């Protein structure tokens, strides 16, 4: 690989033209900069929330203040977050429209450019489009509604189904879990709520698209998915932001509950701009014979710390995490997975694939914990890292705590540099060095892309191609 300095500029240019554009700020309401108790109260009051939710927020705010930042991970980047410089709540419109025509023109144009209405027409069963703090558009396929499937933005869900929300929110990820979960619990806004009734099968994916627009924005969506007995659902989220010079903060909390025999697949294609801190807590509970899959792709952001977790609490539950990360210049993708086996005859597979280039860093951080009551457990962990040059970095931090009987654990890890022989082979078949690199990288990610709906797979391959173009000389 030769000089890469020319490519960085190109890469940024491209992100800028495709995703990095922004709208002039035109908010219905924008909270003052920084966070204090007043901001928390104000968010809750403006949303017209019940008292218990305000109480939940205020308690979480105290926890946020009392908790230190994580003492592990990339300390230099973590300590670079200035909580006083963030805007915690920006309301873009009066409410979530049910028709794109009713979405404010600027915002609609943004989502048009991102291709969301088109995707909805083609292959989605429902869409939520969130713009900074709140959903501006929301729609669900009529057939699903008839089956009793609920798909709402979280604020609307709290209004329409306060009892369900009260019963479940914070049960999978309590505010005490970590500093960022506490922060989210204090200032959460937007996100998705999904309830799939017993036996219902949602065959087409439901999608949420998260867009940050404002400079120094904080986005704190909160998602709760409950799949009732024997039901199944596939949820996809995507995200992008303009490339501002000041940092933005995205800190979501996602809670999944898979009841007996249910199947939840949660797919993320994270492509934040390189100034966004992406510190997300995602966790699922899998009851008896339930199956939870996290398909997690991280391409963007400055620092991502995200370890989708599954707590296997019912006999026969299964879990799968497929995580891919792409770390370019100035990026650190600190990702992985966490499985907690708390019931017998449970199993899980973690596949992590990362690529680092132009000085980027990717880390796999994983925890596999098997409790004493969990016997006959099978778990497989596989981490592959590919380095595209000599200045990039990859590390793995696997932790295993096995206390159960008859536990079958497999762990494999590999780090490879893109092979000169692979490149020469492809070049001898007429591909340029950049085309050859792209092909090797696409192949490396194939395990991930083949799990995506075709449209997303094509888009992801295109993104990788853009990342590669001009990166080799």
């Amino acid at each position: 690989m030769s000089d890469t300095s020319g490519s960085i500029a190109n890469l940024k240019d491209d992100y800028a033209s495709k995703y990095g554009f922004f709208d002039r700020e035109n908010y219905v309401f924008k909270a003052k900069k920084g966070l204090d108790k007043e901001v928390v109260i104000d968010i809750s009051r403006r949303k017209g929330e019940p008292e218990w939710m305000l109480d939940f927020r205020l308690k979480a705010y105290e926890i946020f203040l009392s908790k230190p930042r994580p003492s592990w991970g990339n300390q230099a980047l973590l300590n670079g977050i200035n909580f006083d410089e963030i805007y915690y709540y920006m309301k873009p419109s009066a409410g979530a429209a049910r028709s794109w025509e009713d979405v404010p023109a600027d915002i609609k144009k943004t989502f048009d450019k991102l291709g969301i209405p088109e995707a909805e027409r083609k292959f989605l069963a429902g869409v939520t489009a969130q713009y900074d703090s709140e959903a501006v558009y929301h729609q669900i396929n009529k057939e699903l509604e008839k089956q009793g499937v609920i798909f709402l933005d979280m604020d609307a869900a709290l209004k329409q189904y306060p009892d369900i929300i009260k019963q479940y929110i914070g049960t999978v990820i309590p505010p005490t879990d970590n500093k960022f979960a506490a922060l989210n619990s204090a200032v959460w806004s937007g996100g998705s709520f999904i309830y799939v009734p017993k036996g219902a099968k949602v065959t087409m994916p439901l999608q949420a698209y998260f867009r940050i627009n404002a400079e120094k924005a904080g986005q704190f969506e909160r998602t709760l998915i409950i799949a009732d007995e024997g039901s199944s659902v596939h949820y996809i989220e995507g995200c992008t932001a303009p490339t501002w010079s000041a940092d933005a903060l995205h800190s979501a909390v996602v809670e999944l509950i898979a009841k007996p025999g249910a199947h939840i697949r949660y797919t993320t294609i994270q492509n934040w701009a390189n100034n966004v801190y992406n510190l997300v807590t995602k966790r699922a509970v899998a009851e008896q014979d339930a199956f939870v899959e996290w398909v997690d792709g991280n391409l963007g952001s400055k620092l991502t710390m995200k370890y989708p977790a599954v707590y296997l609490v019912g006999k026969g539950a299964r879990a799968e995490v497929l995580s891919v990360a792409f770390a370019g210049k100035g990026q650190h993708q600190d990702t992985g997975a966490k499985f907690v086996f708390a019931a017998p005859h449970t199993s899980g597979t973690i596949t992590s694939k990362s690529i680092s280039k132009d000085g980027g860093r990717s880390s796999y951080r994983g925890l596999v914990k098997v409790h004493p009551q969990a016997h006959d457990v099978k778990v497989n962990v596989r981490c592959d890292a590919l380095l595209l040059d000599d200045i990039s970095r990859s590390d793995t931090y696997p932790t295993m705590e096995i206390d159960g009987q008859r536990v079958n654990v497999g762990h494999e890890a590999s780090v490879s540099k893109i092979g000169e022989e692979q490149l020469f082979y492809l070049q001898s078949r007429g591909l340029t060095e950049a085309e050859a690199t792209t092909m090797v990288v696409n192949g490396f990610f194939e395990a991930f892309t083949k799990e995506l709906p075709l449209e997303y797979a094509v888009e992801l391959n295109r993104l990788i191609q853009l990342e590669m173009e001009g990166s080799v000389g």
Partner: protein
Amino acid sequence: MPLLLIEDLHVEVEGKPILKGVNLKIEKGEIHALMGPNGSGKSTLSYTLLGHPKYTVTRGRILYNGEDITASKTHERARRGMFLSFQYPTAIPGVSVANFLRTSLKSVKGDESVVKTFRKQLREKMALLEMDEKFATRYVNDGFSGGEKKRLETLQMAMLEPQLAVLDETDSGLDIDALRIVSGGINRLASPERGILLITHYQRILDYVKAQFIHVLIDGQIAHSGGSELAKDLEKKGYDWLQKHPEPAGAA
């Protein structure tokens, strides 16, 4: 004008001289075989012809259709019609044979139209090489047996229809059936417009592919050149009897 003209080629690998003045001429329509003991520089010559970055030309030049390509990039050589069948092809995990071939075909022919007939062409060529259709969905060389790898190389050659094919020990590790099939692929490619350089350790493949010219490479130089009968002599006597005496080779 010769299809390939190698003049006084000196090549180093990591500072170590391997080729020490190779001369070779291949005209259109000719099949040449290059033989020689292990370590004589046969594979170095094949890699150098396609411009592998690890092989440095320190003297001499390579002319292809009269043009000096000594400094050309590998993909440019491929696009001009040069092809190397690898002795040890590399795996490209996650990339299907079909996808790889389509991309390669588009690159080499520089024309989208070839892609339209791709499926049909692929099916036909695979049938000729007695390959199962499922082969197209497998990942390139990933978990392939030695024989499967050689067949895939031959399939690529059949699809890309190069003007000059350099075959580096395509016959090694093949059983008789596979050798017959692969040789068939080579013979179908041969034409008055094309040239083939067959690098081999054994005389065996020459029973199937009729080379008009045989060259023996010893210690980085072509020590001897002759007609097809030379292969039989080598089979009987080995290489030791050959004195090293570099001479401009080609038409013997």
